[in-house]
């Protein structure tokens, strides 16, 4: 006899035995929890590691540096340090070249290589070292090719000692490095230190110095900043770097976190649907327990205890797979950050206990929240009625209207939040609210659609299937919601990326309007009028060249150093800039007066528009430039200002060019390219590429940036399939008697199978169709709200119907595929067994 104890062991055993007997059910529930937890861990890990890596890279070898000079438009040549010390009074300056390398003995992890000048580092009193290097290594560091010092942490990993030679895998062709000493110290940074000459002689992707660290006196920075900005370099406080990295990566991190929460939301639905199914399946058992005297709270406790055990398994599995997935994701994310923002050396930075605790809490929390409703349902059931499914369905139907109202209310709240906010966090909260509202409304809508179908379609099998789907809403509801959410995420994020890609591609067509790009290897060397004129003449004289454009990009000379200044001498037949209004009129105004164009990001972040003005620090002091129009630019979310090149030169003491565009006569593009390449080979101071290649490269980077988002879409798709399998198993199981009756009425097994498949197809298609408007809404919100807030830029909203069709098809096929096994199993079990059930 069952006692009054809250959860008698016997009861729990009975509960868990259910899952043991139904391993598929067990696996689905655990997978649902694990998937959500894994997504959170993986994405958080990526965000956390990128933050840590940036922070670490800002600490390395800074000494007492107060400021740093970084390239912003132009590379920093070796001579910049002498310039700073001999002419600009910044004697406490230290050049750094930072790059990455990979040892053949440690293929899996790249490591930072810092190239420094020991004497310069001393000027910044680099005190954090923790101690002087061991071994007699300094003279060798400066004089022996390939000589390096290893941090003690790295030396331990590599099991390397002074005197060892370490083969390099990356950069390719770099050969070996010679360990001449170790850097002691108790920090666990992994890095390689070498003389700057050693690093410079390794093959590298970029040219020039990575940065120059400076220790400046008060007030010195203000004098220095415009001097450096003119040369295309940026001066900023070291402290600002961390802050800036924070703000740069903030949008990125919030995006990632939002995606991980989305994954958890979908995961929670999955848990809900599996637990609900498990409860539905055991109505008879619960009814029996109740009739045997088990109390309601005991049934409730039983369901929660079950979910506790399952959650524990799911969370552990989720944490483990999240860490594995995260390691892969980190690489993607960091590569993206490196591509987009700075060529920093970033790497995998391990797992924090806090992160794991958070994911665990969310995993358990979401599972309990999701299981609470079915648990209540199981507990609330009276002994007799609990055994009666039709009662459940009736109650569910009575809940339709309140649910719809709740969804509508939530939708209004979401709209309120989204309309009012200019910040990213509330925007995401609004999007979640909107999605939750859609998920709440989904089963109701499915019910409505199925009713309508059943009433209007004259084809009996379809109307029967529709009615059946509608009637089984207690099981199909959550599954439909989960599937709808997953497909909506899949299509919404896809639409956003697609729109963005189209916008970027379109913009590349404007900004890279020439056919062939010529870049002087040493912009400074061309900076005399005669040499530039001579080069331009030579380029114009090339066969097939119709037109030439010139451009120069530097850090924005406005004191902040944030953002860029683009000076362009456009070609009459070109397309730049991408702005509203007639191109010729805009260009004419730019040439005629001190007027500039500003990028969307610039306009939005500084709340400026046409008619307003920006103040720039010219060679003759601060000057006002009126904003003529807003143009499209995706190169930086810090903002870009554009002006006419001759105007730029009259205001700034800078005659360098970064790029010259060659416009070919129609059909003669290849000829121009060849001629330009020949000229470059003969002169030896030019690089030649095609715009097409740069466009391709840009889009490649774009695609790489969104790889992580694609991974998320994949997870969403996976969730969709699991959700459907789950729901269909439940439904098929419950339909056994119904099927048996139909069979008894004379339907052949083939007909029954087709009927079952029709039902599952309907279910999937209904979820897919519902996902279309929700996906479009999601995409629209991501474009119009999130991207504007995070980056300040807009994009065309391109509805890719093919993608949406794909999503619906995916849902339908997922339904069919997921129903394949349950449909067959249902047939196999019937009819005799099923009819004998009562």
């Amino acid at each position, binding site marked *: 006899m069952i006692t009054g104890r809250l959860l008698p062991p016997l009861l729990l055993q009975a509960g868990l035995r259910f899952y043991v007997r139904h391993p598929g059910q067990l696996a689905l529930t655990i997978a649902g929890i694990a998937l959500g937890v894994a997504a959170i861990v993986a994405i958080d890990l990526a965000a956390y590691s990128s933050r840590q890596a940036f922070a670490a890279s800002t600490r390395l070898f800074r000494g007492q540096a107060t400021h740093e000079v970084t390239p912003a438009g132009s590379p920093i040549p070796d001579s910049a340090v002498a310039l700073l010390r001999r*002419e600009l009074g910044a004697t406490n300056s230290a050049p750094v070249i930072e790059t990455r390398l990979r040892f053949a003995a440690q293929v899996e992890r790249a490591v930072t290589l810092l190239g420094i000048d020991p004497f310069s580092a*001393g000027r910044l009193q680099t005190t954090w070292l923790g101690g002087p290097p061991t071994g*007699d290594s*300094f*003279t060798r*560091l400066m004089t022996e090719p390939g000589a390096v010092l290893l941090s003690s942490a790295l030396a331990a990993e590599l099991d390397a000692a002074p005197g060892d030679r370490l083969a390099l895998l990356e950069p390719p062709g770099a050969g070996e490095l010679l360990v001449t000493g170790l850097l002691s110290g108790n920090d666990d940074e992994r890095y390689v230190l070498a003389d700057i*000459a050693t690093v*410079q002689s390794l093959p590298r992707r970029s040219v020039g110095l990575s940065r120059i660290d400076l220790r400046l006196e008060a007030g010195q920075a203000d004098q220095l900043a415009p001097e450096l900005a003119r040369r295309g370099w940026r001066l900023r406080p070291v402290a600002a770097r961390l802050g800036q990295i924070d703000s740069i990566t903030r949008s990125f991190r919030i995006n990632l976190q939002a995606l991980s929460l989305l994954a958890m939301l979908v995961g929670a639905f999955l848990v809900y649907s599996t637990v609900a199914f498990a409860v539905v399946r055991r109505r008879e058992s619960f009814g029996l327990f109740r009739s045997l005297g088990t109390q309601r709270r005991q049934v409730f406790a039983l369901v929660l205890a079950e979910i506790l055990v399952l959650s524990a398994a799911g969370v552990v599995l989720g944490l483990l797979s999240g860490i594995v997935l995260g390691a892969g994701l980190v690489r993607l994310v960091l590569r993206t950050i490196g591509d987009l923002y700075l060529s920093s050396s970033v790497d995998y930075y391990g797992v924090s206990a806090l992160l794991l605790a958070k994911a665990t809490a969310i995993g358990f929390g979401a599972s309990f929240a999701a299981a609470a409703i079915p648990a209540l349902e199981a507990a609330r059931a009276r002994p007799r009625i609990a055994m009666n499914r039709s009662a459940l369905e009736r109650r569910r139907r009575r809940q339709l209207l309140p649910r719809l109202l709740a969804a509508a209310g939530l939708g209004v709240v979401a709209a309120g939040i989204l309309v009012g906010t200019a910040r990213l966090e509330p925007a995401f909260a609004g999007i979640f609210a909107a999605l939750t509202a859609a998920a709440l409304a989904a089963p109701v809508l499915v019910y409505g659609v199925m009713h309508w179908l059943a009433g209007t379609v004259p084809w009996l099998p379809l109307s029967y299937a529709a009615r059946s789907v509608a009637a089984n809403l207690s099981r199909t509801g959550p599954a439909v919601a989960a599937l709808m959410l997953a497909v909506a995420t899949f299509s919404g994020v896809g639409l956003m990326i697609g729109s963005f890609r189209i916008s970027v591609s379109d913009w590349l067509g404007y900004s890279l309007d020439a056919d062939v790009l010529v870049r002087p290897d040493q912009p400074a060397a061309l900076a005399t009028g005669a040499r530039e004129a001579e080069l331009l003449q030579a380029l114009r004289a090339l066969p097939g060249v119709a037109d030439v454009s010139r451009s120069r990009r530097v850090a924005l000379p406005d004191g902040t150093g944030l953002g860029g200044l683009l000076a362009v001498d456009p070609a009459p037949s070109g397309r730049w800039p991408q702005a509203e209004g007639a191109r010729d009129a805009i260009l004419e105004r730019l040439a005629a007066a001190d007027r500039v164009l500003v990028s969307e990001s610039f306009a939005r972040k500084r709340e400026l528009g046409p008619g307003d003005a920006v103040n720039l620090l010219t060679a003759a002091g601060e000057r006002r430039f009126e904003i003529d129009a807003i143009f499209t630019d995706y190169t930086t979310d810090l903002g870009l200002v554009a002006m006419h090149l001759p105007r730029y030169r009259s205001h700034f003491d800078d005659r360098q060019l970064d790029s010259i565009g060659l416009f070919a006569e129609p059909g003669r593009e290849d000829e121009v390219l060849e001629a330009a390449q020949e000229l470059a080979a003969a002169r030896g101071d030019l690089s030649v590429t095609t715009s097409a290649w740069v466009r391709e490269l840009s889009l490649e980077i774009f695609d790489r940036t969104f790889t992580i988002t694609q991974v998320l879409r994949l997870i969403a798709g996976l969730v969709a399939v699991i959700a459907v399998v789950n729901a269909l198993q439940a439904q098929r199981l419950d339909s056994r008697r119904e099927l048996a009756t139909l069979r008894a009425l004379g339907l052949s097994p083939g007909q029954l199978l087709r009927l079952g498949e029709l039902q599952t197809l309907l279910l999937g298609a209904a979820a897919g169709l519902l996902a279309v408007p929700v996906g479009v809404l999601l995409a629209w919100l991501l474009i119009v709200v999130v991207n504007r807030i995070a980056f300040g830029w807009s994009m065309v909203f391109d509805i890719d119907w093919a993608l949406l069709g794909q999503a619906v098809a995916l849902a339908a096929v997922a339904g069919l595929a997921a129903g394949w096994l349950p449909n067959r199993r249902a047939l196999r079990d019937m009819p005799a067994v099923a009819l004998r059930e009562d």
Partner: protein
Amino acid sequence: MRRTLLAMAVVFAALAAGVFWLRGGHEAAPPADTATVVSLLGSGDDDGFRRAARPGDIRLPRDHGSHDDYRSEWWYFTGNLTSADAREFGFQLTFFRFALAPPQPRESGWATNQVYMAHFAVADRTADDHRVAERFARGAAGLAGITGKPFNVWLDDWSAASTTAEFLPLQLSARDTATGIALSLRLQPGKPPVLQGDRGLSAKGAEPGNASWYYSYTRLPAAGVVAVDGVNFEVTGLAWLDREWSTSSLAADVVGWDWFGLQLEDGRDLMLYALRHRDGSLAPQSAGSLVGTDGSRRAIWRDDFSVAPTKAWRSPATGVSWPTEWRVRVPDHGLELDVRAALDDQEQDVAVRYWEGAVDIFPAGGGARLGRGYMELTGYRRPPANRPR
């Protein structure tokens, strides 16, 4: 001569930037003791470097420039200056070049085996104030270097540069914001250069090749501006340039040296260096020169002179006792002089600790000042009992 710097060259070879990093890494780390530096002499690997061997090989103006195939080299400017209101200053601006290894070509704008060090000091006698600044830079990427025509040696914005195609006049420029001293001085031709030792070959030890190339401009009229904490003083006075390059080491029993560069008001200039043994006796290579008003040189050898300390000043900063007053005798030339530091504290507690400063010259036993000059003291240690842990 500047034997200090020979030692420094070896410090560089052995410790290179290590000294420097030590200082950066641990503020309490002391600079290398000169005595320990001396003990390091001979440990450097000098293979691949040229050595000073045959007398008479110096050619000017060619040899004003750099000799990268020798281990070490310096351009050593010192002098005494006076402002219109009779305020007196001493100054030192020195550029050292050290080769960490024999020259070898490498593919980088930063690659070099040449390291430069510069010391800049101003002694403000009225304010009893001596300040010194020290800088290092590699001889690459335009940070430091030497050009021949016109002559220019520089490290950062410190430089000594010919103003015409001729070596003289020279413009000296240096400014250090941390210590608040600055110098802008034009050096005019005075006496012609003097080849020290045996036609420029100055022996440092008994073995052949253990020698340096050494010549001096003992008297260069100077005019310009000295600034202390932003206050400018128009000054005139006399400067002295010592040029030396070598690949050599000290004998094992030499613990330090004392150098005197004295400019007398009668127009003569006296240079003496005394290499000290541990027992206080002078090494046989100790020598000097007396330069007449017409620029003619009389060599002075070990047995022709004597120097003896008459007062010790103990540095509160380092605990080292420096002999800041001396009795100097060169009997053959009738010279018996008292040399006294213009201010006691001209200690230079930099990468290598030494004393370099302005001195006054008096007749032995007292009387009116006979001239001014510069003095260098090395190889003095803290008394062991006073050495802090």
